[in-house]
């Protein structure tokens, strides 16, 4: 009997080992999403997958895992009748999968966003749009990158700390086009320390210090309200749209996890 059982046990053990290996090394595995994240963020609400309402664009292979450019494109116009009211960005295999959520309004004009994120290991990145009628739509992309969250802090941390809280808006051209979506970029100088960048020699971890909330308004009307986490790269940088109906003031208010707040504003002329 023994001579017969042993090879079988070996086969079984090898089989299990192999299947675990295959599972562990399959980078396209979506277990983190289907097993936990989906329910954690969206419960059992149905989510339609595809690029009809929202589309996420990310590089398949990232050049710098701490600086991965991500673009989200809204495929429906932001009208008062129907618009994308929230976009959630999830990076499945990051230590903190929730990267950011953005609340948008018809005043946003277009639900187009761009930013730079940290990617810690091969992962799916997904953008989930919630339209004003409460439906969910998801677009995803696979990104090959690793070490983005534990990657060394920016080469010149001293310089980064010195300009912490500095902000600026950048717009295409000097003047805004009234009644149309205008592209604008908000640059925030903040090291966005992840809390995962360990000092191996002193065994100290640089405490997390990152931007938690970004509010952009035009003449008091919200354009973009974001909740952000450590996956957003150092010196957070957001591109988005807004529709000015007259000359006015774009204003950004930022709060970080240590409670520090910063504001910046820019006059928009027509």
């Amino acid at each position, binding site marked *: 009997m023994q001579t017969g059982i042993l090879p079988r046990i070996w086969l079984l053990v090898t089989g299990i080992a192999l299947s675990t290996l295959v599972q562990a090394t399959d980078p396209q595995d979506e277990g983190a999403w289907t097993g936990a994240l989906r329910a954690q963020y969206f419960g059992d609400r149905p989510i339609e997958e595809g690029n009809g309402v929202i589309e996420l664009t990310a590089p398949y292979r990232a050049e710098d895992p701490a600086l991965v450019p991500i673009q989200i494109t809204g495929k429906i116009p932001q009208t008062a009748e129907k618009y994308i009211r929230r976009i959630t960005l999830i990076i499945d295999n990051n230590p903190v999968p929730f990267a950011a959520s953005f609340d948008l309004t018809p005043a946003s004009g277009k639900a187009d966003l761009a930013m730079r994120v940290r990617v810690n290991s091969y992962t799916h990145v997904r953008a989930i749009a919630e339209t004003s009628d409460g439906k969910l739509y998801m677009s995803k992309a696979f990104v090959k990158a690793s070490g983005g969250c534990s990657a060394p802090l920016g080469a010149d941390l001293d310089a980064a700390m010195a300009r912490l809280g500095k902000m600026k808006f950048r717009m295409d051209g000097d003047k805004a086009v009234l009644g149309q979506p205008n592209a604008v970029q908000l640059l925030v100088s903040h090291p966005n320390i992840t809390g995962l960048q360990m000092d191996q*020699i*002193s065994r100290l971890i640089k405490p997390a210090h990152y931007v938690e909330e970004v509010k952009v308004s035009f003449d008091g009307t919200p354009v973009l309200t974001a909740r952000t986490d450590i996956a957003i790269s150092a010196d957070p940088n957001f591109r988005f749209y807004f529709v000015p109906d007259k000359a006015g003031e774009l204003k950004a208010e930022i709060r970080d996890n240590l409670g520090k707040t910063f504001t910046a504003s820019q006059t928009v002329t027509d």
Partner: protein
Amino acid sequence: MPPRFIRTVGWALCGLWWGLAAAQSDLELREIAPGIFVHQGRHELPDTHNRGEIANIGFIVGERCVAVIDSGGSPEQGRALKAAIAVHTPLPVCYVINTHVHPDHIYGNRAFKAPGVSFIGHHKLAQAMALRAPYYIDKAARDLGYTLTAEDFVPPDQPVEESMELDLGNRTLRLTAHGPAHTDNDLSVYDAKTATLWAADLLFMGHLPVVDGSLTGWLKEIDRLKAVPARLAIPGHGPAVADWPQAAAAEERYLNGLATEVRAAIRQHRTMEQAMETVGTSMRDEWRLFDEFNKRNVSTAFAALEWEDD
């Protein structure tokens, strides 16, 4: 299969193994000026085959002792360098100079740790090592095929604030700590005796320069280095030796081109992604490993230069 055939193959394999082992322990060195020995690295990405041993490393011999300049890209290369030094001189190693934090320059450190050996580096090197070690340890296991521990990172016991002179016995090396350039912890070494500048990774030749510090800072430091009265320079990647300051021309052209094109892209409100597709591509044919590093250089430069106009 006839036993004789197996024996023959067996001996052939043994011979092959010996040949490989001998090649590994025998570090090829060139004396580029009296008392200055350089091992020339290869223009490759670090991987399990080259084990990260890709940079130019070596040592300078005085009348009293020896200064190692960059210890190697792996613990094994560090040991090979140590053995090679003993072949060339009976004098002891008194200094190990780490020109910056990158793995291909410091992973041989442990081989030299001994009483009487002082480790020298930029005043920001210890911090850079501390911040990067955990990431580098994971990366070595994944990409280089060996295990490192925190002990492989020997931080400097003598940090260089601005500059420092080391006496090797009738030979004085002048060390300069640079501002953010290739990294934020670059150190150059000047040997007045032979008018040789050991520029390390402040000078790339052939291998595309890699910006892991500050593009504009690097251009400033190149200007500073051009004022050094050296005749010869040793790049961190490239030939073992080249004429100074002509050796810096190609690197300077690339870095200036990168800065000009990235600034233009920012002015034209192009995105980082768009800039990464086009910036620098006209210089592609002048460099090895261009596709491996140019886009990353563009993204690093772009993120920094966005803050430049104020």
